[in-house]
C-alpha cells in the first residue's frame, strides 16, 4: 500500500539502515558474525566440523586452519570428513583417513612422537599445502583438566 501512497503523494521507499548505528536491526542479514582468531581447545574446535557449525576448522601441527571453502573435501560426507573439527596431523602424516588415527576431543592431544621420517615429510608437505590454501586462524592447545 505504501507504494500507491508514495505514487500519489510523492514519497519514496526508505531502505533499511545497514550501518546499525541507530541500533536498528537489519532484518535481511542472517550471516553469522566472524569468529575472533585465537586459541582453540580440542573441545571448542570440534564444534566447527561443518555439521554442528557451518564452518570447518582443521588443526595441523598445533595450528588451526579455516577450511570452510574446502567443504567438498572436509564437509559432511566428503572424503576427508573425519578431519573436520579435529587435529588431522597423524592422519595426514600416515596418509590415512581412518577414524582410528584421529583422537577424540577428550583425549590428550597427539604429540606425534612415534612418526617416521617419511611420515614427517608427508605431514610437512600437507602443512605447506594448507598454509598456501587456507587462512591460519589460531592455535590448538590442550584444555586444562581435559586433555592433560
Amino acid at each position, binding site marked *: *500500500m505504501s507504494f500507491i501512497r508514495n505514487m500519489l503523494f510523492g514519497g519514496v521507499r526508505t531502505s533499511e539502515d545497514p550501518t546499525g548505528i541507530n541500533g536498528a536491526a537489519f532484518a535481511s542479514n542472517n550471516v553469522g558474525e566472524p569468529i575472533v*582468531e585465537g586459541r582453540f581447545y580440542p573441545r571448542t574446535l570440534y564444534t566447527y566440523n561443518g555439521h554442528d557449525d557451518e564452518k570447518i576448522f582443521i588443526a595441523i601441527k598445533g595450528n588451526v586452519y579455516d577450511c570452510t571453502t574446502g567443504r567438498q573435501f572436509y564437509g559432511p560426507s566428503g572424503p576427508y570428513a573425519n578431519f573436520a573439527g579435529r587435529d588431522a596431523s597423524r592422519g595426514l602424516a600416515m596418509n590415512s583417513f581412518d577414524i582410528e588415527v584421529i583422537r577424540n576431543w577428550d583425549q590428550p592431544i597427539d604429540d606425534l612422537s612415534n612418526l617416521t621420517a617419511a611420515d614427517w615429510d608427508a605431514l610437512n608437505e600437507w602443512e605447506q599445502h594448507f598454509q598456501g590454501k587456507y587462512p591460519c586462524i589460531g592455535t590448538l592447545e590442550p584444555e586444562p583438566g581435559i586433555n592433560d
Partner: protein
Amino acid sequence: MEWLSLLVTIAVTVIISGWLVSNYILDFKRDLSYVALHEQSNMSTVRKENETAHYRNFLVPSGFPLTAGLGLSLGYRVRNGNFGDVWNAVMDLSNANSISFNSKSYSLSEINGMAKHILHSCFSKGDTAGGIGINVSPLTLEGFVISIAAMMGSLETNRVIPHLLASIPRHKMDTVDTLVLDSWHSYKMLNGSEHFWKLIIVCENSNEKAPKDVSDNVINFKQLIEGYHNDSDFKYTPPTDNSDDLKPFLNITSQWNTSTAFSHMNLVSSMAAFIKNFPADHSLTENDIITTLGYTSDVDMGLQMWCKTLAVLLHGGSARFLTDSETLSPSSSSPSKSLIDTLKSSTLLLIKSDILNKITKNIFPSQTTLFQSVKESWATTLLSEGIFTKMAQSNSNLFDSMRCIYLMETLVESDIISSFHQAEVKIPKLRSGQLKDTFSTTRLNRLRANFGSRLVVELYCPYIVIGPLSQTNFFDYRVFPQSLDTNFVCTGALSTSLEGKIIATDSNPNLDITKRQGMLCIRGFTIGKPIEKNRLENAATISKELANGEGWMPLVGVFGLWGQDGCLYLYK
C-alpha cells in the same frame, strides 16, 4: 445500502490490488532483488581481535583469486596482459571510433600514427631515451598522444616511461630526461633549469608567446609530430615469460612531491575490474562513448581516466574529453554548447562530484512545469523501489543515449595516506570532511531520474590507487534514512581487484570494531608502489605495525564502517 456495498467493494479492490502490486508485481519489475542488494560482499569467517573480517566484492568469493588482469591466453597458459595487448586490440578494432578533445575529433589511426611517430623519432632514440616528465594533462590531445607514445615505449625499453607531474620540477629528476610542458608560460617558469633536461617539448603550437632566447633543446608539439602518417596498425607480441606484464607502466608525482609507480598489471587489473562490474545485458559494446569531464590541472584525473577510457576503446567504443573552462565553470546560467553536444551522444560519463554539482545547476532548471515535477516524483518513487525508469528525463531526448554516470568521490586528505610518514604514525582523530561535495541518496535518485541514466558512486584514493577502491552497484537506487545520509556516504562494495578490512585505532576508541567501525585497510592489484626509498620502507613498516603486514596498506585517516549489506560507508 447500495452505496455502502459499492464503497466496500472499491476499498477491498484497492487494498487487494495494492497488496498484489507491492508484494508481487514490483518484485518482478525490480532490476535487482533486495536480497542481492543486501549481500554485496563476501567476508571471511574469522577475524583478528582488533580487526573486522576481510571483505571482498561478491563477484570474487574467498578462496578465488582477485581480478588480476584480462585473462588472455598464451598457448595453454593464462596471462594478465599489459598495455601492449590492450592497444593492439584497440587498433585491431578501430574503425569508425574516435577520440575527441574539446569537440575536436581524431580517428584512432591519427592518434596511433602520432604516437608511433613520436616514439620512433624521439623517445626511443638513444640520446633521449629515458623517463618522459609530462606536465600537460592527458585529457588534452598533446598529453594523451605523448602518454600513449611513452606507454608504448615502456614495453620496448625499460627506460622510457610516462611520468605525470603535478608541477614543474624544481630539481633535476634522475629518472626523467624529457620534459613536456603545456605552454610557453610554463617554459618561462623553468627559470634557467632548461639544461636539466635533454629535451623539452612545449605543447603550444604558436611560437608567438615564446621568449626570444629559447634554448636549443626545445621543440614544440607541432615539430614533434611533423611528418607523421595515419597508421591503424599496432602489433604487439608478448614474450613467453610474461615479463612485460610486470614492467613499469606509469609514474606520477603529486603536488606534495611524492611519487608512485604503477605497473602494467595495475592497469589491466583495474580495467578488468571495471569491465567485470557491468551486469549481464549491460556490458560494454562498440556503441559506447565515454566522456570524461575534468580540469587540466587535475593530475590525478590524468591517472584515473586511463582504465575506463582504454576499456571502452578495447570494445571498439569512442572517448571524449571536455576540459574547457566554459564547460566546467560556466559564466552564464545556460550550459555550454560543447557540453550539450558531447553529452547528447555519450553513453558513459566520468565526472568528479564538484564538477557534477556545478553543471547540473545549469543543465536542469530549478523551475519546472507541474507535469515535469509529477514525472520526477513518480520516477524517484519507482527508483526507490528498485525500478529504473527514463520517464522523467529532463530536456527531452537530450540524454537519450546516456546509460551510466560514474560519480568520482575523492578522498580529500590523501597526502596523509601517501606520505607513509612512519615517524609521525599518529593516527588522526575522525573528523568531518573526508570527502567533499557528497550527494544524498535522494539527490542521487533525482539525478538518475533527470538524466534517465544509472549512476554509480565510486571512491578514489588519488595518486596511490589506479581505478576506484569501491563502487556502488549498477542497480543500487536505495534511498537511506536521513540519519544515515547525514552521517555517511555509501561507496558500495570493493573493486574486484581489491580486498579490504577495517582496523581499530587507539586514537578513535569510540569507533567500535565489533560493530565493524574503524580505519580502512586495503590490499590487491591496483595499488601503486612508492618510488622514494624511504617512503617504500615506511610503507612496509606502517603496514606491519598497523595492519599486521601480509600486504595490507592502511589508509591512514580514512574512517568508515562495513554495512551489513557488505558496502563500505565512509563518515562524512
